[in-house]
């Protein structure tokens, strides 16, 4: 199973490092990253494998949300299928 982590907010140093650190500590393997900064607005979409998570998915998703709250970012973690079904025929 794969999940997509979508991070948006004001740019600052170390966003990718912080998100990656949570992924690594929870056993989520990063498969792909797409990131851009437009007028100080940071956007990142990260594709991760979640088959070997060391904790239940809701807790993983909760950790990322808390990280978002701490750093003033919006972080949404969702199953990849939601995007596949919505945007691919």
């Amino acid at each position, binding site marked *: 199973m794969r999940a*997509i982590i*979508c991070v*948006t907010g004001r740019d600052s140093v170390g966003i990718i490092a912080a998100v990656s650190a949570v992924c690594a500590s929870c056993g989520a393997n990063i498969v*792909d990253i*797409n990131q*851009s900064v437009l007028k100080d607005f940071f*956007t990142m*979409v990260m*594709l991760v494998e979640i088959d070997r998570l060391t904790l239940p*998915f*809701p807790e993983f*998703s909760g950790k990322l949300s808390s990280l978002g709250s701490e750093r003033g970012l*919006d972080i*949404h*973690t*969702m*199953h*990849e*299928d*939601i*995007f*596949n*079904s*919505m*945007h691919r025929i």
Partner: protein
Amino acid sequence: MLNIEDIIETVNMIRDENLDIRTITMGISLFDCVSDDPDRFAGRIYDKITRTASRLVPCGEELETLYGIPIINKRIAVTPISLLGGSLGPDAYLKAAKAMDRAAKEIGVNFIGGFGALVQKGSTKGADALLSVLPEALSETELVCSSVNVASTKAGINMDAVARMGRIIRETAYLTRDRESIGCAKLVVFANVPQDNPFMAGAFHGFGEPECCVNVGVSGPGVVANAVARAGNCDFSTLADVIKKTAFKITRMGQLMAHEASKRLGVPYGIVDLSLAPTPAQGDSVARILEGMGLEICGAAGTTAALALLNDAVKKGGVMASSHVGGLSGAFIPVSEDAGMIEAVEKNALSLEKLEAMTAVCSVGLDMIAIPGDTPEDVICGIIADEISIGVANNKTTAVRLIPAYGRKEGDSVSFGGLLGHAPVMRVPGASPAAFIARGGRIPAPIHSLRN
């Protein structure tokens, strides 16, 4: 990897535009609960519901977390109870309603539908018994919803049933007078009722349905309103395309959830209902979509045309996104549940008559409309008959959910709380249809019912 813009679009739909799954409704057949003993009858109903739906709420919550999509309601629809207790008396039906209420509370759903009857051609002993305790049942339970089908294009309109529903609505309003007559918010009178509708208060599990299945109702007026706003000043063909594409995306999400819920619960998936269901929250209004198309306010001349375009485009976009479409499928216009509708009524831009015209081109009907508590019974019956005849003549579903709010008069406001919202009390026609309603009998089916 997916396109980053598509991903951001989806996240924005959920985060900023109130996109959600409005309901996952499990339909459960209760035909095996029939008994000649009232207590055994009620006990079997309770046991069957709690046993079959025990995993429904946890499953909905798992899907919410995994997919990041809010699933607002988890609900139960059962076989119309009137079909099950023909050999029993009214007391047994009251016990059955209370058993449904207890079961719904036990499994944690927020409504249970099916305490109703289909009487489009006439009433059976079971239907009579159920209708005789309906006001009591609605006042003595919290989560039980009822629908009564009084007409169909094939059968015509059972005007005796219409007259009876006028009395039942008045009595229900009186019995729940200490709670803003909320009992009436749980009671819908239908023409051409769909048997697989997942939305309340009209949901029930029809007699052609499987033993158990899940039906999903999608929503997303906010998403459509924003798409219409982004489309800017385009012509109608372009506007319809924008709505179709948006409806497609919303429905695909509903289809995925229906599929996943079915897999996890181990029951077949029935249908996805392609409805735009508003809530009182800001940014979740069907009226705002119509205004976004260029109307000064919902209710202005042009509103019916705008709604017809919206309703058609939602269906066209949604139908390819789902393998089985059913239920009501269309735009809902419940007054108390839509911030834009409430505002339009408060500004005297939207009348009962305009709402009636609008129901000719969208799903459902006169929905969640508060009227003065002293509205005579025959006027309520006349409003029902008018609305129901629109459905019968046009071969579509129409419904009436009126709340004659006890002790309230035109211009007052009643508040039901939560998803049911609040409603300004609307003006009703003053002239009496009493002699018309008193004729009784059936209005014959229209000529186009003979399609074979």
